[in-house]
């Protein structure tokens, strides 16, 4: 029984730490105000550090990292409130293409020259993962497929060279990997709470090669989603640790009525509640990482239960961190709000705490 990080994991953690620590709130604002709300040089650097390669299998040119390895990276990104979309535009699409063994495109994602985004959310399906509104039908030739429909909440959509679009072909699930400049494809960009640019994607008679359909089943897709949910949990844990650390420091420094506000018992006890949540979240993450995959469905349900628990804790900590920062906590000038806003996205990605809990009920 051992919960310590391995030497490799410590190395990844310190790599992430070095990569992210210098992006303060001002630097963040600057990057977010650029055209794509992101500096792609950072993406290249991230690739060079091996943080993308770790996601893919070794026989695919990756480093074949474990979920624990990836979780270490996600937690590290969280604990510095990194603005890099490693989770949604790195780990998630690479994991999907790796599972489908789509090596031609995978190479360009691993080396960071291309970026992909997953288009899964539909206007009238809330958190249901199965595509109902994006429809795939036979194209003019036997070798093409035509896509029609709308996707929302395409995270990093403004950055993406490729879109991985989930669609239904007469009720059969498919993911289509298509260039983001495909004909008939229209996008509307909008800002998410972490300052990144998502898109609404409309496909109107978009004809793509049949080979763009990935070799992946709905069950496999859900497994990758569950793995991503573990990474969401890890990043939320990192963010929560950051929020607690910053808040404990703040209440020690901030003076009111001639004493530090950290000397008030109500604030002390409130922060102990946060600490208690944090440690329970950490335990839940560890449990999830060490969970045996008896059946994929049971494992996924357990993962979603864990994410539900961690999401509730992270939001609890974030709201208290804002409260104890007082008016400063409401401004865009301190890290607190940015961390809270990222938690909102992570806690709702692939279902909010309530929805994830409903999934967990199947195995609870």
């Amino acid at each position, binding site marked *: 029984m051992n919960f310590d990080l391995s030497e490799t994991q410590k190395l990844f953690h310190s790599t992430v730490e070095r990569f992210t620590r210098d992006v303060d709130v001002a630097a963040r604002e600057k990057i977010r105000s650029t055209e794509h709300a992101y500096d792609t040089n950072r993406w290249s650097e991230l690739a060079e550090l091996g943080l993308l390669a770790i996601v893919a299998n070794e026989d695919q040119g990756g480093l074949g990292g474990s979920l624990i390895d990836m979780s270490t990276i996600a937690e590290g990104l969280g604990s510095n409130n990194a603005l890099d979309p490693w989770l949604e535009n790195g780990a998630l699409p690479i994991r999907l293409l790796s599972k489908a063994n789509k090596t031609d495109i995978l190479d360009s994602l691993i080396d960071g020259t291309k970026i992909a985004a997953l288009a899964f959310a539909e206007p009238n399906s809330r958190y249901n993962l199965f595509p109902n509104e994006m429809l795939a039908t036979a194209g003019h030739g036997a070798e093409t497929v035509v896509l029609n429909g709308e996707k929302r*909440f395409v995270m990093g959509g403004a950055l993406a060279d490729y879109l991985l679009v989930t669609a239904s072909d007469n009720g059969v699930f498919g993911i289509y990997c298509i260039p983001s400049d495909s004909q008939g494809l229209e996008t509307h960009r909008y800002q998410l709470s972490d300052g990144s640019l998502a898109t609404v994607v409309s496909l109107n008679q978009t004809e793509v090669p049949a080979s763009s359909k990935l070799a992946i089943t709905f069950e496999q897709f859900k497994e990758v989603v569950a793995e991503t949910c573990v990474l969401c949990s890890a990043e939320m844990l990192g963010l929560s640790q950051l929020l607690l650390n910053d808040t404990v420091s703040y209440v020690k420094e901030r003076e009111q009525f001639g004493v530090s506000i950290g000397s008030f018992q109500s604030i002390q006890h409130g922060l102990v509640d946060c600490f208690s949540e944090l440690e329970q979240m950490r335990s839940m993450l560890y449990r999830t990482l060490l969970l045996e995959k008896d059946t994929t469905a049971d494992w996924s349900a357990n993962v979603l239960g864990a994410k539900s628990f961690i999401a509730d804790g992270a939001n609890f900590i974030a709201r208290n961190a804002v409260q104890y920062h007082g008016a400063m906590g409401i401004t865009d000038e301190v890290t607190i709000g940015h961390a809270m806003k990222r938690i909102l996205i992570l806690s709702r990605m692939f279902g909010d705490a309530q929805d994830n809990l409903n999934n967990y009920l199947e195995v609870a």
Partner: protein
Amino acid sequence: MDMNYSEADLAFREEVRSFLKDKLTDRLKTGVERTPGVFVEPDIGLEWHQILHEQGWISHRWPVEFGGKGWTPMQTYILEKEFAIANAPRPAPISLGLIGPVLCRYGTPEQQAKFLPRIRSGEDFWAQGYSEPSSGSDLASLSMSAELIDGKYILNGSKIWTTHAQHANWIFCLVRTQVSEKKQAGITFLLVPMDQAGIEVTPIVSMSGDHEVNQVFFDNAQTRLENRVGEEGQGWEIAKFLLQNERGGSCFAPRMLVSIDSLEKAANNIANSDGSTMNNDGDFKRRLAKLKLRALALEFTELRIQADIANGRPAGPITSLTKLVYSNLSQDVQTLRNELYGYDGLQLPYDRPLYADDAPQAVGGAAAQVSLASFLNGRASTIYGGSNEVQKNIIAKRILGL
């Protein structure tokens, strides 16, 4: 125990309703609905201000001799409730709710004659200067100085969290005119014109992307002696009056109830993960019902306070309770609303105003578009006007005797 409307009350309610039907335009309502901030933008707020002024209702809560209406608490509550139901803009509270009542109570006849009509007409727009960077809940520790030289006060220091200072032409300031043992002593209340070289306004953007508050720097700024309210050293007394006024005789519940009803309606049209709609989701319905019960209870707490006032029993520290209950409840309503919108609730445009023609297109409707920014701004409700912690200290001490 009774709560029957009198004939006069019912007639008054009709009058308010028909006024709102005539005067509250779609433009104004849209302005309110699509504003995620705590306060409406001046273009909406002032237009409505003018309409209320023409109707003679703008300063209805003031003493009658200064333009108040002398309505009963029940009538006041009826008006607030009807305004809430109609989703009318709230006129700028700093001018009408803070400095107006202060001048009615503490102003000289000259100050009253000069300023009160200009507040009513909307000609003057006021900002509040009490908090400073190092004095939040501990207001009395403020350090901005004012020195009286040749009939003018020379001001140095800064004020923070000043709402809409970028639009204001006057600011009232609590300043230190004397350094004394007891920090509450030596505080003076001054009225200061904003349009002068010694004043600089720096915006503070909130995490919602809204620019509602500012830091205001005073570098040898000036104001005439005649702009002092009360005596030197009387500032703390005036500040306490002002802050109680900020909390007193509240009417939070009607807007809360309207907001909860709108959430219920919205749920009819939002898909659930199982293909049904959210108004069929048992958990959502129970959470909503619990919020509604809290709001209904708050409405009666507010009515009980109004009844006490009407019976000559001043409200006192119980107003800390309505602030506390309201601010927690409003955050919970905003949380549920934002969660209702699912992925669409994660959009956070920084452009303002969102009702402008060139504003970003909403994803999933206008209500979804403002939802997250409203939620984020709403986190301030447990902080401003005395944080939850401060309100609890007040209740523990003054009501429970601890």
